[in-house]
């Protein structure tokens, strides 16, 4: 059971932190081109012992 005072404090802090996050999100560029690579590299088992053993 979460008491109401704590819930009130959470709500106040969430509002403040949420507003700050929205400001940060507004700074992210959105104009990346189709060719601009996503910085995600999927390397199935490349770095693992199992993967290296199979190689």
């Amino acid at each position, binding site marked *: 059971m979460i008491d109401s005072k704590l819930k009130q404090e959470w709500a106040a802090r969430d509002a403040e932190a949420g507003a700050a996050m929205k400001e940060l*999100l507004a700074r992210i560029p959105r104009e990346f081109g189709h060719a601009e*690579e996503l910085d995600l590299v999927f390397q199935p088992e490349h770095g693992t*012992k199992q993967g290296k053993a199979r190689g």
Partner: protein
Amino acid sequence: MTAAEAKAAFARGKVTASALVEDSLARIAALDPKLNAFVLVDAEGARKAAKAIDRARKSGKKLGPLAGIPFALKDLYATAGLRTTAHSKLLIDNVPKHDSMVTAKLKAAGAILVGKLATHEFATGGPAYDLPFPPARNPWNTEHFTAGSSSGSGAAAAAGLVPLTMGSDTSGSIRGPAAFCGIAGFKPTYGVVSRSGVIPLANSLDHCGPMCWTVEDCALMMDAIAGHDPADPGSADRKWTPVSRNLGAGIKGMKIAVARHFHEKEIECDPAIARSLDDALKVLTKLGAKLTDVSLPAHADWDACVRVILYAEAYAIHEHDLKTRPQDYAAITRARLMTGSLVSAADYLQALRWRRRLNTIYAKTLAGFDALVTGCALTTAPKLDEMAKPPYFSVRGKFVMAPFSVAGAPSLSVCTGFSADGLPHSMQIAGLPFQDATVLRVGHAYERATPWRDRRPPTPS
């Protein structure tokens, strides 16, 4: 005594491991009740390990490079058989079965684990009083904040409770406390030190690194802990060349870039800190470095990029606990982590693309330079109560941290003097990824040329 001094004294037979450990335990007993740097002291384990080292030396066994030197770990590092809490109620009963890679490497080097150090909860929520342990206090004035999240590491190293400590840095958590506590704090290149067995905050940004009184001690630690670890998916698959031996080679002829715009145009800087930065740059010039002003993207861009990535990744780690036991987090931790729920998948992926773009600019700007200097903390440590109680004064916007978190670049905070009321000033030395040795060399040369390592914090009253 610094670790380098202890190492030399131990090698000459002037001191035993047991004496070093007893000295550390006595300082902790005398000073830590006022500092709250430690959340756990393992006196029994430390004494046992010290006796084993002393016995091994007597029997002529070859000892590791840090033999007999006490160390302590931010309470995120797993320690076999020793509670590891992340300063949180959620992990209050967590006793790992295995050491983290860093813990194991330091023990293998002969260093002696004395205890676990305070952190902001899960390396993000603090300072706060609604946690199982109180926040650490700044040894230069115990009414003041240490910065975080490696708060206990900063306090313990500054007060000389142990010569060697480890912190972690996701968006400034080594360099901030190092700056406020007047010590050397080194965030290595991403992937140089293994994070395996360390409780994460944000996997693509987390770095482990040393926090010590001197750069020389940081270099000694780096030589013990750096190197590839297949158990950490972010670990760089390359050999670490020891940095300690060449640390004193000087900086004559080095080309050092200076990014002044962060502290002169973008972030309000205490005028006394700006003057101490100018003085520090003159010291580097006098030591033979050639300084050139450069310009990087605005600090606010780096900061937005790092925080969006950080809280998206942190939310993914904590989502289940935030939903099922939110009351067990400190209010400040919960609020910060919950912001990650506002980040969409598209936001996160665009921030990752932005990181790549920013890092390309960073690499182009620093090409041909040996190192980069910027401000570090642009204010001195505020009072702790201003941070931990409503309306929660924040120092977040007073640091130059984010560029090097985003770039995964080596960055070092060193002390550049003191304010009129005795609180430390700082500067940051950074480089391109894997220029770790050069960054440490610049910091060491600066420390050797200035008197700031001769002054220790006062005994807390």
